């Protein structure tokens, strides 16, 4: 196959020179089958050695290389250029929701700090001495935490999370996946305490189910699915969170801005945490969808009658005032 020309439109920022980020174009002649990381390395080697980005393993396991490609966070080491070129152009920028330090390098500290909020380590029963050998755990129990343990802490979910965009105090999808990893670990003794804490403000109930995190996640961790599992468990244990109003706002936010409706959100109503009963009655589309499908798919998707829903919310906003 012949090589092809691609324009890489890269967001640059040099803290020593630039006041604000700017775009710079690089033309590259590329062989087929090349990953974005290799292409960026080629730019560094041949066109501009000052281009800064993080990477290490080159094999999608270390979590260093998440950045935005055409506006969405991805691991560039495992993404083929050919999958992302649109009209000969491929845009690369730093992750979102984190401060840019230089070019494609962002300040990861808030991300690392966010993990600290969920006590990210096993808390076995202190009253029980560890056995001489391993603790027993069934293959099924292992499989329950298997997805959340695949998280490589790349931050892609954090970058694209809609709630974090407006509320930096939200614990964030990666931390929730991490919380899941312990809440569902048969060896952990603090499940109840973990569920209680995570149901507080800024926790698991603040997610609007937009689904960005799971769409962006390069592993099986898929935060939204984990969030869902945590919520169900929290509800069955009576931790509903006190965030009814926040839900409404979150929901409005999601629909209003993106034209997306997440069906997963709706069944929760029947369990009672969605405590503004009047709301659902004014979302006819949502209700119809709920009736039609018992097991909604785990991805949010566009509602055909977005305008109708948006109008409904506008009315709701007015009523609120």
């Amino acid at each position, binding site marked *: 196959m012949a090589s092809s020309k691609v324009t890489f439109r890269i967001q640059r920022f*040099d*803290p*020593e020179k630039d006041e604000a980020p700017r775009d710079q174009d690089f033309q590259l002649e590329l062989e087929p*089958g090349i*990953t974005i990381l290799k292409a960026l390395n080629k730019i*560094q*080697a*041949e066109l501009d*050695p*000052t281009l*800064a*980005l*993080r*990477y*290490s*393993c*080159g*094999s*999608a*396991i*270390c*979590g*260093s290389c998440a950045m935005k490609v055409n506006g969405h966070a991805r691991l560039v080491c*495992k*993404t*083929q250029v050919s999958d992302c070129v649109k009209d000969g152009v491929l845009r690369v920028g730093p992750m979102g929701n984190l401060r840019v*330090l*230089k*070019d494609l390098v962002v300040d*990861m500290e808030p991300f*690392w700090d966010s*993990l*600290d909020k969920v*006590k*990210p*380590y*096993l808390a*076995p029963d202190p009253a029980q001495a*560890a056995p*001489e*050998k*391993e603790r*027993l*755990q*069934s*293959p099924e*129990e*292992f499989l329950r*935490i*298997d997805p959340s*343990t*695949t*998280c*490589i*802490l790349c931050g892609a979910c954090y970058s694209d999370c809609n709630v974090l965009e407006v509320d930096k105090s939200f614990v964030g999808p990666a931390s929730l996946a991490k919380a899941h*990893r*312990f809440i569902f*670990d048969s*060896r952990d003794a603090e499940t109840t305490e973990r569920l209680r804490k995570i149901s507080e403000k800024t926790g698991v109930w603040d997610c609007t189910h937009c689904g960005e995190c799971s769409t962006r996640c390069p592993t*099986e961790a898929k935060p939204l699915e984990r969030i869902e599992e945590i919520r169900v468990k929290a509800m069955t244990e009576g931790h509903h969170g006190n965030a009814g109003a926040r839900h409404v706002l979150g929901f409005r936010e999601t629909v209003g801005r993106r034209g997306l409706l997440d069906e997963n959100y709706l069944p929760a109503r029947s369990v009672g945490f969605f405590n503004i009963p009047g709301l659902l009655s004014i979302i006819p589309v949502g209700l119809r969808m709920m009736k039609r499908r018992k097991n909604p798919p785990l991805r949010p998707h566009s509602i055909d009658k977005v305008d109708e829903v948006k109008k409904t919310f506008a009315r709701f906003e007015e009523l609120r005032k």
Partner: protein
Amino acid sequence: MNSHDVVIVGSGLAGLRAAMELVGHLDVAVVTKVYPSRSHSGAAQGGVAASLGNVDDDSVEAHIYDTVKGADYLGDQDSIEILCGDAPRTIYEMEHLGCAFSRTEENKINQRAFGGHSAQRACFSADRTGHALLHTLFEQSYKQRGKLQIYSEWHMNRLIVEDGVCRGVVVMDIRTSKLEVLQAKAVLFASGGYGQAFKITSNAAANTGDGIVAAYRAGVPLQDMEFVQFHPTGLYQHGILLTEGARGEGGYLINEDGDRFMSKYAPSKMELGPRDIVSRSEQTEINEGRGAGPNKDYVLLDLRHLGRAKIMERLPQVFHLAQDFIGVDCIEKPVPIQPTAHYSMGGIPADNDCQVYLDDKGAHVTGFFAAGECSCISVHGANRLGTNSLLEALVFGRRAGKKMLDVVPGLQLAPVDEERELAAARREIDELYAGDGTEDISVIREELKQTMTLQAGVYRDASRMEPAQTKLDQLRKRFAKVCVKDQGKSFNFNLLEALELSNMLEYSELIVDGGLARQESRGAHFRTDYPTRDDENWMKHTMAFRTEDGGHELRYKPVKVTRFEPEERKY
């Protein structure tokens, strides 16, 4: 000048495990050029060895024997006894800390077969064992938040050793390029391997042997550097590792004609023969024209008969790597593979408590320790068995910690001439800006990698290595002309690359010269002009000492044999 009781360079399994032992007792800091969870330990896939006997009969004894034999009798047997003896405890400890292991029907830790091991000994977490272990320790570091200082994205530039006493390190904050001296009563290097010198490599970009070279430049000899393991299943052209677990689970290696060629080379173990033998068998198939593909330059890993369910449950990462990186669906099609540089057996010589040797007679550097892949203790001898290195990092990381707990309270902060050390580090950097710019960093790096893979790779001989020697010499001269183009202070990766390349050029000479001097074939070092092992002359460790002029002198030291006399290595 900042000071700590202990400074650990490296936050992989070895570094973090050592830190865990020390935190709360001593003032300990970890310096790492990538965030801890990005360390290369996380890339390990297949498993970690321990004779738990959860799946079939096993014993520490058998583990020791397999390791000694796998090492082609160049491993120090007293160290191997420690490694294998401490393995079960180590695995239970990691399990207690929360590591998620795949389980047997009896709810115990599951174990799979691995090359060169005579029992199902590899404990695993699907095919992300290193990831599971590393993240467990990283999680534990949150428990110590506030007590354990981690200098993330700081680059260690120099080790300070004077009069046989280690005094600290010179480090650089990658975010600002600021140089600083960290004074310490003891320094532990847990800085990983040196596989980046090869073109086809499974190693992370960070594995540029920085620690090894810093020690060497500070006057510490390096041991057995010529021994580099090539893994049989690197993804064609990428070098990315497909875990040996793929063969452990029953995958076949086939050539162009679909023959399971291992039946010719290791009839009893077949695909699960030790790595060096399997890699060479592949290379022979390729060299003799039985490779697959348009250029006949790869062989195939065939997983199709395992079926979708088993592949997705046990080898999901293999599936995704083949899919994402070369677009092959391994459920439907065999995957193109080739040998890839994988593990560095050589490194900083140390005793069983990780105390670094200053010479070939047994003198130590006071206050300097090494553990994990950067060390050469030597538990892997001429060839590491898969799954023994995660184990080594954990076992010896802990031992280093314990020893430091023991000795550091009795040590003082040795005086450091801060100005002089900073000036020396600054000079090293300035030199990289001083070249006339007629040479280019990436060109030299590429030529180095090509040379190493083609001329000091799976098959070696004088007719390839002598020109390689000349080539390396030229590359070092050319390197003096490079000029780092990025003048900035923040995240200057261009500068870091230059520092790393300088390291790679330095240690690559030791790989080639050590290999050229060693006129025998042993473990991963295979010379077509000396195809047999020569115990009489060569059952000894190479020790490379740096000379004043930047060259080196090779000396040798005996191997420690406790109970297993050398015998022929047949599988």
